[in-house]
């Protein structure tokens, strides 16, 4: 069906404040008397705190307050499992854990004061590698994790935070029936989300004693709940004010420094701003979990997968606090099944405590790790079976009615169409342009997110319409999408629909941004609210004998009777539907045999999408996610040595630059059935996960070298190439835990 506004390539009208520098992010918020908070962090991965002397810091000119755990209530915080103290109490468990906090007149004074705090530690034995952490006799991080609020019951080892299982059929029977069985183990690195806005927040207590919060947080209502728990205040006493967020990618959903800012505000009687330095982000943010993943797959003679067992160890670091899922695990573990029909399946995912930085959610949590392992494994099996990797995939792709690992059954499956589209666009079957050049394919799929959103639309007296929404702007362009939806429904030009950003006072709840949810839940909430308003308008028009298009006349007539035409809708999508979005990607790489350097010559990405509401924003999500996937594949790594991260600036932890992006071909298979407004699907997390395996498979195709651990550095490829001809070579750089 043809739309007026939906599907039109409309630029970022919502961004005038952003291009003009007027947009106020949390770190830009200022209030009268505002002071700065800074945290002192542990230099040791595991130690007992014997003594903290803050007297010198307190005496430093310009310092207003210095707090340690002693000055705070003994509260544990988290997003789902509550195991992290506000400030370290008696014991630190990772390098970068907060042990004290200072409020001062400016950030430099606050940082100077930190150096004046004396802390005496006593080392404790530490453990860093997840495999070591769950052995008998490993140092224990938390004496009784089962006692923490939100802790899942199953705990095979005290250093296990959570276990997540996906089971179909009888996997052992499956292996017995298999003609051949293949097993490979993969490792992925610690990686930061890379948003350029470090965590920032301002907390003030207003004259009514209400706690006013401005924070780089994408879930304002959940934040309000979490703060109410952390601060022991009734929710009504907290107001979260929405600000634009300078990049999220999964990382901006916790309370982070806000409780400390609150206690400093209490101690100083002033509003307090806390902004992490980027070094602190890299040392103590909540980065993507590193993983050790073993896949064991049984196949039949004719190249069909009959059974698969997957074991994933996610190195979660010192606390589980940053994981929001009820499982306190990573849903991405389910992608151990890939995009394939696997009758007998067992996936077990363990999140493990260690004396490292606590990890959290990052764009499609757990999936880039699992898809790298799974799609590399698929190519390695295809090679063993002397099958074209594309053909091996074809024979095993999901079809209508098949089950996902989580038991959901699928409809409208377009896995094979998506694969064929990517193969065609990438000239898969054509000869390669030269030696040391290879092609690799990889696939994944991503659910369309669920959750709940409130929307309210109001007819203004000038005939324009305002959409009130409490979804923060993380940059995806969702606000523009929602305006397009409302304008489409009401038959208005786009510039007659405005967005008004709500606070947590305006609605009762909202699941916020994340999980490829907003176009679906926000879009449907806005759609239905607009439909309701449309009915009111038509009724009013009939009463007045005016055409329904005479909006200002209708609004003014209602106003004269003291009424405002307004409609709200609460949309709540509980369970995932039977539809997901498939992705197929092909990388063409060149390997320099003398250096091992990998150059991506061309990248093809194909997506099974629904109705595209804003093509520019949609393509932006694909491109942004894809380049994050490229960084994950080739260069990004938070290097740790015994819990100490050594890449503590963007000079050492490298993100892709504008000179590092490959030529790109995008293929969109539109007009699928989607649960969003106008049949929309989701795209935000569709392009990141298959990039690394596509590149790894292309490297193997180009030079016969299989890299099992990310990132695929030139050095790893170089020494692996050398190892093929010479048995004795220096080891590839020591693996990071």
């Amino acid at each position: 069906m043809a739309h007026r506004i939906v599907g039109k390539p409309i630029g970022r009208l919502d961004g005038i404040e952003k291009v003009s520098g007027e947009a106020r992010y949390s770190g830009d918020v200022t209030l009268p008397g505002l002071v700065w908070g800074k945290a002192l962090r542990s230099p040791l991965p595991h130690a007992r705190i014997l003594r903290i002397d803050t007297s010198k810091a307190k005496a430093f000119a310009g310092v207003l307050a210095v707090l340690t755990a002693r000055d705070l209530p003994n509260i544990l915080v988290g997003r789902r499992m509550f195991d992290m103290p506000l400030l370290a109490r008696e014991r630190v468990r990772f390098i970068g854990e907060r042990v004290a906090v200072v409020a001062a007149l400016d950030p430099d004074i606050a940082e100077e004061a930190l150096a004046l705090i004396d802390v005496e530690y006593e080392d404790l034995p530490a453990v860093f590698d997840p495999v070591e952490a769950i052995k008998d006799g490993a140092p224990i991080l938390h004496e009784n994790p089962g006692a923490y609020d939100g802790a899942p019951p199953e705990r095979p080892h005290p250093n296990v935070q959570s276990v997540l299982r996906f089971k179909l059929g009888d996997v052992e029977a499956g292996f017995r029936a298999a003609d051949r069985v293949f097993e490979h183990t993969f490792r992925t690195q610690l990686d930061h989300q890379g948003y350029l806005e470090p965590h920032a927040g301002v907390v003030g207590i207003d004259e009514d004693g209400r706690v006013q919060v401005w924070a780089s947080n994408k879930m304002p209502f959940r934040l309000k709940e979490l703060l109410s728990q952390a601060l022991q205040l009734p929710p009504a006493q907290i107001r979260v004010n929405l600000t634009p967020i300078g990049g999220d990618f999964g990382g901006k959903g916790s309370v982070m420094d806000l409780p400390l800012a609150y206690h400093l505000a209490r101690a100083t009687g002033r509003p307090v701003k806390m902004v992490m330095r980027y070094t602190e982000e890299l040392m103590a943010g909540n980065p993507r979990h590193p993983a050790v993943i073993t896949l064991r797959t049984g196949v039949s003679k004719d190249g069909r997968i009959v059974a698969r067992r997957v074991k994933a160890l996610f190195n979660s670091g010192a606390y589980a606090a940053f994981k929001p899922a009820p499982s306190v695990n990573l849903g991405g573990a389910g992608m151990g099944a890939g995009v394939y029909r696997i009758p007998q399946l067992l996936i077990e995912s363990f999140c493990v405590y260690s004396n490292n930085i606590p990890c959290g959610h990052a764009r499609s949590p757990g999936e880039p790790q699992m898809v790298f392992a799974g799609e590399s494994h698929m190519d390695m099996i295809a090679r063993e079976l002397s099958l074209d990797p594309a053909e091996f995939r074809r024979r095993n792709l999901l079809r209508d009615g098949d089950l996902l690992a989580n038991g959901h059954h699928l409809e409208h499956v377009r896995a094979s169409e998506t694969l064929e589209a990517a193969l065609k666009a990438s000239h898969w079957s054509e000869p390669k342009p030269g030696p040391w050049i290879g092609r690799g394919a990889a696939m994944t799929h991503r659910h369309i997110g669920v959750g709940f959103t409130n929307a309210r639309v109001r007819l203004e007296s000038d005939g324009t319409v305002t959409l009130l929404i409490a979804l923060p702007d993380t940059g995806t362009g969702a606000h523009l999408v929602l305006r397009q939806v409302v304008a489409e429904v009401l038959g208005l030009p786009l510039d007659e629909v405005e967005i008004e950003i709500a606070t947590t006072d305006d609605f009762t709840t909202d699941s916020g941004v994340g999980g490829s949810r907003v176009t679906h839940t926000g879009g449907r909430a806005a759609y239905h609210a607009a439909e309701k308003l449309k009915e009111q308008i038509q009724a009013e028009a009939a009463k007045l004998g005016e055409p329904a298009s005479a909006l200002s006349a209708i609004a003014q007539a209602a106003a004269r009777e003291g009424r405002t035409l307004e409609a709200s809708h609460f949309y709540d999508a509980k369970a995932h539907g039977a539809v997901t979005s498939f992705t197929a990607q092909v990388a063409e790489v060149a390997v320099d045999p003398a250096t091992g350097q990998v150059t991506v010559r061309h990248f093809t990405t194909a997506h099974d999408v629904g109705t595209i509401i804003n093509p520019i924003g949609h393509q932006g999500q694909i491109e942004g996610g894809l380049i994050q996937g490229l960084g994950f594949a080739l260069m990004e790594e938070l290097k740790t040595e015994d819990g100490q991260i050594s890449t503590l600036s963007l000079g050492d932890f490298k993100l892709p630059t504008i000179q590092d992006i490959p030529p790109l071909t995008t293929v969109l298979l539109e007009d699928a059935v989607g649960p969003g407004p106008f049949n929309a699907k989701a795209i935000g997390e569709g392009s990141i996960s298959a990039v690394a395996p596509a590149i790894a498979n292309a490297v193997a195709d180009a030079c016969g070298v299989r890299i099992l651990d990310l990132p695929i550095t030139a050095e790893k490829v170089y020494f692996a190439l050398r190892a093929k001809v010479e048995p004795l070579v220096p080891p590839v750089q020591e693996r990071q835990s």
Partner: protein
Amino acid sequence: MNAFEYRAPRGLDEALAVLREHGDDARVVAGGTALVTMMRQHLVRPGCLVSLRDVQGLDRIEATNGALRLGALVTHREAEVSPLVRERLPVLAETFRRVATVRIRHMATIGGALAHADPNQDPPVTLLALGARVEIRGARGHRELPLGEFFRDYYETALEPGELVTAVTVPLLPVASGATFLKFLPRTADDYATVAVAAIVTLEPDGERCREARIALGSVGVTPLRGMAAEAILSGQRLSESLLQAAGEAVKGVVDPLSDHRGSAAYKREMTGVMIGRALTQAWEAARRAR
């Protein structure tokens, strides 16, 4: 950052006087890209910061007999785009072009880069191969040092307390010479080099045999290094795979890299050999064309 006194003298003598006055407690700053960053990290805490930014006469690029003279306050960007440098020493302009990003090149000065003596920087490599000399002013007057004697250790130079770099003089290439700078960047385009090499080849009149080769290596030791052994192997020889192999092996013998985020010591050693082979090939071809 800590609180400090800021002084911005307008003349060199005044600057030297301020340095004398504050002694060990003073730090010299020009572009600030290295020092201010370290001050922000609380690694350097000067009592007094002496800025050369307003000192007159240190920002010129001039041709002296057979050489180019670049004042200490010339920025990397100015050296990169200077018509004089591009025409007389294109390899030097190209080297500056490879440093970090345009924004940083607008800030960082040549004098600052030399005094900072970070062995991972690019320009010192090419300057070393070109046989540059550093001009130094101090209380006891003026002195000059070959760059090879100027760098002493990580971030350590031959500068005495109270001394300043005022300029660097770079001899032009002899006839029938070609020069190449290669920066190996296996990660991102804006990274520090994993290995950086500069090679200069000067040919005999026959246009075939190498009269003289000069090789310098960056990011593979505590200072930029000369590949003298390799230079000796090359002189008098014709270009051949085996010759490049031998030169590569020779440079691997002199490097002493650190393992870091840009590669293990073993990998950097291997890559030095590869890069020098490529640089020599390019320099050799350039030398042929230059005849």
